[in-house]
């Protein structure tokens, strides 16, 4: 057990949204869930004194929308062969994934307090063999999309209708393996595959466009045979619509324009918060800003 025994935020399992909700209710409910995830992320990283808070907070709304309104997954049967697959390629944002999985009921929220503690199942990067709901052990960048392509080929070969979603960092797209996979998915017209780029425009050391330019990013995906759409990465209804658009005969890339550190004013869009750890006072401030 960790030194601090304070429970993670939330503390209770949250229900996924029913299919029949209107846009306003969807926004409202996913907004509240996302706040719980963000509070949990801040507490976990504050307690562990380790983590990647900026990217966790930028990807939170995508993960909340997927797990609570889109993915066909059952926390009671996490390896059901017909489940949808969610692969977090930006595996360093494990605190957001663990919080989401736990609040969705894949494992007890109390376990979140062990994040990165010695021998915890909750490593800095996710491990499918130890954490229910994790599809792939990721961490080194550029691994998730090829795995997602294989998963989509598997669905096609099986004649199954499960879908595959891969959450990518934007800086991660500098890894060439992504483009090998993008070419392969476009060539094979894998329309059960959705890649989501958490486009927060910051990587570890600087802005993406100052490091190794990614724009025009949507055009790149289109050139590889994908449909590409851009949306506000913090607008749950826009994300929901992008993730549930009818299959079009092509793989889909959703460029989720986001703010690194979203939700905490002093962390937002600041390069140093890639993996900086908030002080106890900063944790308090952050939790105040992330009021329920």
């Amino acid at each position: 057990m960790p030194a601090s025994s304070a429970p993670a935020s939330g503390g209770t399992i949250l229900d996924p949204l029913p299919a029949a909700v209107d846009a306003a209710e969807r926004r409202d409910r996913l907004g509240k869930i996302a706040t719980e995830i963000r509070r949990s992320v801040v507490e976990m990283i504050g307690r562990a004194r380790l983590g990647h808070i900026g990217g966790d907070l930028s990807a939170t709304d995508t993960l909340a929308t997927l797990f609570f309104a889109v993915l066909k997954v059952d926390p009671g049967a996490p390896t059901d062969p017909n489940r949808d697959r969610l692969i977090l390629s930006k595996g360093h944002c494990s605190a957001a994934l663990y919080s989401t999985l736990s609040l969705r009921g894949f494992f007890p929220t109390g376990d979140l307090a062990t994040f990165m503690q010695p021998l915890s199942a909750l490593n800095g990067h996710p491990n499918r063999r130890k954490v229910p709901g994790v599809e792939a052990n990721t961490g080194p960048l550029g691994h998730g999309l090829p795995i997602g392509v294989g998963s989509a080929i598997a669905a096609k070969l099986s004649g199954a209708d499960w879908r595959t979603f891969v959450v990518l960092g934007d800086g991660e797209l500098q890894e060439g393996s992504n483009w090998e996979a993008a070419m392969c998915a476009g060539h094979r017209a894998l329309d059960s595959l959705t890649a989501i780029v958490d486009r927060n425009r910051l990587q570890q050391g600087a802005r993406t466009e100052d490091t190794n330019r990614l724009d025009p990013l949507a055009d790149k995906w289109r050139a590889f045979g994908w449909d590409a759409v851009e949306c506000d990465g913090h607008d749950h209804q826009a994300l929901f619509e992008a993730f549930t658009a009818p299959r079009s005969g092509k793989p889909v890339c959703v460029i989720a324009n986001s703010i690194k550190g979203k939700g905490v004013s002093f962390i937002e869009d600041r390069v140093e918060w890639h993996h900086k750890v908030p002080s106890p006072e900063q944790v308090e401030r952050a939790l105040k800003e992330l009021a329920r």
Partner: protein
Amino acid sequence: MTAPATAKIETFDCRQAFAETLVEIAQSDPRIVAVCNDSVGSSNLSAFQKLFPERLVNVGIAEQDMVGVSAGLANGGFIPFVCGAAPFLTGRALEQIKVDAAYNALPIVLCGMSPGMAYGELGPTHHSIEDLSWLRAIDGLAIVVPADPAQTRAAVRWAAGSGVPSYLRIGRTKAPSVTADDSNAFAFGQANVLRQGSALTIVATGILVSRALEAAEVLAGRGIEARVLNISTIKPLDEAAIVAAARETGAIVTAEEAMTEGGLGAAVAAVVVRHAPAPMRILGVKGFAPTGSATFLLDHFGLNRDGIVAAALELKGS
């Protein structure tokens, strides 16, 4: 004058046995898929492609994608046989082998085709002499080097049903069969004692096994009875067979078509030094090869009958 009549010994390229067995098991197990990098021809996958066009996933010249795609296929319930030239499969996709296959503990069969110096004159870029060293360091990855077609057939069947990530090193350079009885050609994790002897042990793998047997024949002619061990499972190593060899014969020569840093010889030495210290000679490839055919290069590095005999005589002080 006519040349003396010599019995022509039949030699084999293991890729044919590999491909035939893969087709055979794919016919009864729909989970078997082949994944390749524009290597249908060099991996002998034409027959597989003809019979199972949907289950042949050719990702193009993209090894990182190839191994990642295989992890996704395994996640979806398939058993991928990943077929590519050994140097590119293991070198280019090493991190995917470590993370996507081994750390994820998925039943992916990595098939390193044409390993060692099989590509001869194409040079060190196309030689796979580092693969055993690289892959031995990866936790949970089984490493199998069949020496002949019978072992290849058995190893492919084992890999398909093993449920663990594995690397099969499928030889291209022709060599004679070393299997006397096909029914027990290969058992995962077990060394085959191909010849009994008490003066020393020659421990060999892959294409060097038949050469070790030739060397033992020569040594016997000089009154030195050498034991010959065929190590077809490099990892996990049959430690009991190695310890017994060290204790009972007191000297060991290892031979492999791979760099000596970290390969079979290093693995054997680690066991010997801990359990039964005995003098050893480790034969293998010593650095990037000069230009030459595969057989020329094996001779160049002393990876032949005479090289093994010389090492054995040196060890025995005669």
